[in-house]
């Protein structure tokens, strides 16, 4: 029952988040969601085993939960408020970290790139912060071009929250990364290899 429920929640949250970001033209979230969907369709690491007990906590906490929060915030028409802004940045960084982890795990699985779990998580955290920062630069530049009145301090506080919550997300994921049998996940099935 729970397994079916989890799988349903997993797919509904992605679909709903996709609809929201398309309707709101939210390029950053759209990129994250398309990355996730690509991974699901490509049956890349983790996604083909969503019910596996070790994967349920990270997938719930770092993907289904942030996607649900994102949809919920859109539905209630959230825009302002310090607490909600910080909470939104935390969930955005959690899902960004997961996307970066997937990209690195895919590279590990498909190429000769190799790192142990500490380095994978460390590099994914740095990559998530860099990716979110890059989008902050781009969106701020876009707003400036459109004549919006923005201050330097606003952007700097956004970057500081991206850095802080990026590190928090990395620390939160550490326990799961350590417990996760990622070598097993990364192993290419012999049958799969023969078919390839």
């Amino acid at each position, binding site marked *: 029952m729970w397994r079916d429920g989890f799988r349903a929640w997993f797919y509904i949250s992605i679909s709903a988040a996709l609809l929201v970001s398309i309707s709101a033209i939210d390029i950053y979230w759209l990129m994250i969601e398309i990355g996730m969907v690509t991974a699901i369709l490509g049956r890349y690491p983790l996604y083909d085993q969503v019910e596996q007990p070790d994967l349920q906590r990270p997938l719930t906490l770092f993907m289904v939960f942030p996607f649900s929060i994102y949809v919920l915030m859109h539905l209630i028409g959230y825009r302002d408020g310090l607490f909600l802004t910080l909470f939104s940045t935390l969930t955005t960084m959690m899902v960004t970290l997961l996307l970066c982890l997937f990209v690195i795990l895919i590279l590990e699985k498909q190429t000769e790139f*190799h790192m142990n779990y500490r380095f994978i998580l460390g590099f994914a955290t740095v990559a998530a912060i860099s990716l979110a920062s890059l989008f902050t630069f781009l969106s701020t530049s876009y707003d400036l071009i459109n004549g919006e009145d923005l201050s*330097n301090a606003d952007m700097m506080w956004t970057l500081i929250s991206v850095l802080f919550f990026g590190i928090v997300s990395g620390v939160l994921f550490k326990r799961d990364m350590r417990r996760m049998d990622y070598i097993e996940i990364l192993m290419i099935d012999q049958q799969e290899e023969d078919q390839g």
Partner: protein
Amino acid sequence: MKVRRETAGVLLISEGLGMIMGALALSEGNNYPGLGAFMGGLIMALPFLLERMGLIRLPIFVQIWALLAIGLHTFGLVWKLYDTTWWWDEMTHAVSSSLVGMLAAIGLYLFDMHSIKIKVPRWAYPIMIMVFSIFIGVIWEMGEFTGDVLTSTRMQYSLSDTLNDCYVDMLGGLITSALWILWFWRDPTDELGTTALEPLIGRFKSWF
């Protein structure tokens, strides 16, 4: 451990320049550029000390690159070029961020060569250099912002100036990536391959 003559030469030049610029700035009552110059001199002593301790023999071109980055920054502070020459800030950001990208690439290369837990294929270097360049650029801007908020150093002029710096940092990363692809990973003089010295390699093997 014996230090190469080139390393000693870079040390002498950088310490000399640092002391001259620092003394000049302090004599005119400019404490911040003066302290910056002395700090630069301290940083430039690191390659010599690391080589003397037998840990890292940093390639000479990287030492000159570091001398250029720190020298241009200090020169700009002492002669107030950051306030009077619009492209000075962009130039120093490009030189510094490309140096940071280079140091990150050398670090990765050392792990790749001496650790069994990390293997980085050559095509992955440019991606990782770019990721680190953006990350370090953000950390640098945060440092400037913190300085402005806490001690009113006025290092960040405006939002567009900060954005320009961030984009130039990325450009610096891109330059290092291109240089790495075109030349460094071939390591024609084997300078990169011999950067880590035996005591450090031993520690690498026990730690990683």
